[in-house]
């Protein structure tokens, strides 16, 4: 039932493995969302996880990042990841930008972003002075005028940028982004992808879940196709 992922570009990355997933299964009660998925993402890759909605793409990310409990092995930069421990994954470099953003609507934009630092510090001063927070804010000049505004009052595109910025504030080596363009206008989606390309160019490994592979593959050099909860080569 398991299959390894295909390599879209045909050139296996020469650097180390950032994320290795072996026999991953995720179930919600009796409903199996992901069955025995095996794939690896090399350091510096941009990997697209594609497939129709409801086929378990998001559940793969939820299982890998520890948001839900899983069966199977996940290793981040060679270290076996603890099951169901989001903070462990974040501290070892893997951060999730979830589907539908999952912001805190009644907190300010700046507070939403700075909470990304919670994965590595409890000090608000340290968080504010950190490079991770500074870079996250600098990457989105369009958010600057809105830093004091409540996140729930931002537009959908701005909220997506806040979610990505929060992910970056965690100082990730691997950024897993779930459906970054859901419900966004074409121009805004393009801006989101421009930013993701910038993040990738700066050396961060990317994993992007997309229903439509067309846009994802403008950026990604690898692809994992998910069908009926099974990941396979594309």
């Amino acid at each position, binding site marked *: 039932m398991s299959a390894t992922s295909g390599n879209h570009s045909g050139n296996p990355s020469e650097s180390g493995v950032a994320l290795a997933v072996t026999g991953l299964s995720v179930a919600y009660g009796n409903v199996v969302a992901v069955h025995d998925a095996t794939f690896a993402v090399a350091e510096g890759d941009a990997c697209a996880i594609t497939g129709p909605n409801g086929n378990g793409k998001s559940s793969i990310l939820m299982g890998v*990042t520890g*948001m839900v409990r899983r069966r199977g092995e996940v290793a981040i930069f060679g270290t076996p990841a603890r099951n169901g421990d*989001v*903070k462990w994954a*974040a*501290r070892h470099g893997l951060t*999730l930008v*979830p589907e539908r*953003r*999952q*912001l*805190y*609507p*009644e*907190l300010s934009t700046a*507070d939403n972003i*700075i*909470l*990304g*630092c*919670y*994965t590595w*510090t*409890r*000090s*608000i001063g340290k*968080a504010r002075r950190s490079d991770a927070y500074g870079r996250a804010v600098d990457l989105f000049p369009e958010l600057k005028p809105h830093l004091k505004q409540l996140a729930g009052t931002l537009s959908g595109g701005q909220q997506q940028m806040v979610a990505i910025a*929060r992910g970056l504030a*965690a100082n990730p080596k691997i950024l897993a982004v779930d459906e970054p363009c859901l419900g966004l206008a074409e121009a805004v989606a393009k801006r989101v992808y421009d930013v993701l390309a910038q993040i990738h160019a700066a050396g961060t490994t990317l994993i992007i879940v997309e229903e439509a592979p067309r846009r994802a593959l403008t950026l990604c050099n690898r692809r994992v196709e998910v069908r009926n909860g099974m990941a396979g080569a594309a």
Partner: protein
Amino acid sequence: MKFGNLLIAGITTGSIYAMFAVCVSVWYRVSNILNLAVGDFAMVGALGVDNLYRVKGLPLPVAIITTLVVVAVFAYLYDQVVLRIAQDGRRPIEGIVITFFFTFALSFFIDGVAKVLFGTDVHAAPTLWGGPALTLGSLNFERAGLLVLACAVIIGGAFWLYIRFTLGGKALEASGENSLGARIVGIDTRQYRRLIFIGTAVIAALFGIVESPITGFTYLSGATISLTGFLAAAYGGFRKPGRALVAGLFIGVLEAMLGGYVSAEYGDTVLYAILAAAILAWPRALGFESAVSG
């Protein structure tokens, strides 16, 4: 100077309401559970200290510290046993049952134990700052009242500073806003639920100790306190400690003014009529819609 003295009395009572409202709404923000037992912790604080000091003959500081430790340990165990099974299990209980039932049951449980331990008479913790009322011109300041106000300002201020200026405080707000989003950045929402539950239980007990010389407590006093705190918290949509604080103060002052100027007998009836009318007139502005729609 009737107005001034009524205002002082109102602010004192109001600050008590405000503190309980803040306790209710801060915890509701984190856990989505209304703490209907918050007043019972105040009652345990007052009667526990009275019992240890007056009946058992312990020195006052020892009686106070023992009572607060017992309350903290009890709150910890309650969270670990009841709330963990209810909220953190494989099938977490949701909706009205978790919102009300578990703390409502806790309130009855504490009342029952308190009846056995402390009896049914009116008692109070000893006055911490004895002496005649302080006067300033024609204004009278009861010392116990000033102590209550000071505690309210210090504890309310500490809460505000914590939420406004620390990452832990923002994490606390975030876990109430969106628990899934909070977990993504590694916030342990259960830990905050436990921490705030224990913290507010101890604060409530402390307030019971400071306030009881003014009103006196029986084993049944908790319910009334919870209810007033609950009411003031409702004016902040249960989620806004700042608004709950203002609402608590306002209710206290209004109550004193109505008692002084309208009728001592019907003051409370008029008070609740005004509060109900305010909710009907401005449900959205008072945060009631956000409480209903979640």
